């Protein structure tokens, strides 16, 4: 029981990761693949953020002195995973934008965005 309570967040994240990965490898439409990659990305972010949480902690922002209600928070959750993920999110959207631009150009060149049709067009002499 203690193990389930302690590890359930990792198992949920692994399930979401595998769902995203399945979309990437099993679906043939290129936009579906990009969507699957996005789902995979978001679940990796969730993995890092769950690793940074400390029980009884609060967000790692120190309150202004005259706003404290007398109850001083001494435990702060770990700020380091947040910093990593902040960078990763914006780079993720930059990569997604580039992938979608490539899909637009592929559609103009081949007339389709289904992977099997594109490979078939490439293979004919």
């Amino acid at each position, binding site marked *: 029981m203690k193990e389930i309570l302690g590890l359930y967040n990792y198992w949920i994240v692994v399930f979401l990761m595998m769902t995203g990965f399945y979309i990437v490898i099993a679906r043939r439409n290129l936009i579906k693949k990009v969507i699957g990659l996005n789902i995979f990305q978001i679940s990796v972010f969730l993995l890092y953020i769950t690793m940074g949480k400390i029980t009884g902690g609060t*967000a790692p*922002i120190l309150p*202004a002195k005259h706003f404290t209600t007398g109850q001083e928070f001494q435990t702060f959750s770990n700020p380091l995973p947040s910093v990593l993920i*902040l960078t990763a*999110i*914006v780079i993720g959207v*930059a990569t997604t*934008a580039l992938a*979608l*631009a490539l899909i*637009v150009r592929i*559609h*103009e060149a081949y007339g389709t965005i289904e992977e099997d049709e594109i490979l078939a067009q490439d293979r004919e002499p």
Partner: protein
Amino acid sequence: MKQHSILRVTAKMLIPYILLFALYVQFHGDYGPGGGFQAGVIFAAGIILYGLVFGLQAARNVAPPSVMERLIALGVLIYAGTGVAAILGGGNFLDYSVFEHSLLEGHLPHGQHLGILLVELGVGITVAAVMILIFYSFAGRERS
């Protein structure tokens, strides 16, 4: 979408506050959640909403693509320029402690605050301009 009056009126009321909120998030990044990335993305979202509701040409008049192109370089230049200014001040690259006693005492922030403010400004400008430019590239392309 100009003929949808609810969208038009709501967008007109909301867009100024979205842009203002983006500026708030940018400059209060040291005291609350926020910073350069969030501010840039929210600013771009405001301009994109304007473009979606009032047409791409209207958005291009407000935020011209040629100006955006120069802004993406300006943001990186501000960031790297802060680092080089730290070298010129005698410290390492991006060492903000050389800004301790440089400018008007008591009125402008100094030291780490100034350094962080400048780099977050650079990041915010680049992110906003890149998102807006990417939107223009996608929306301005005609269907084959």
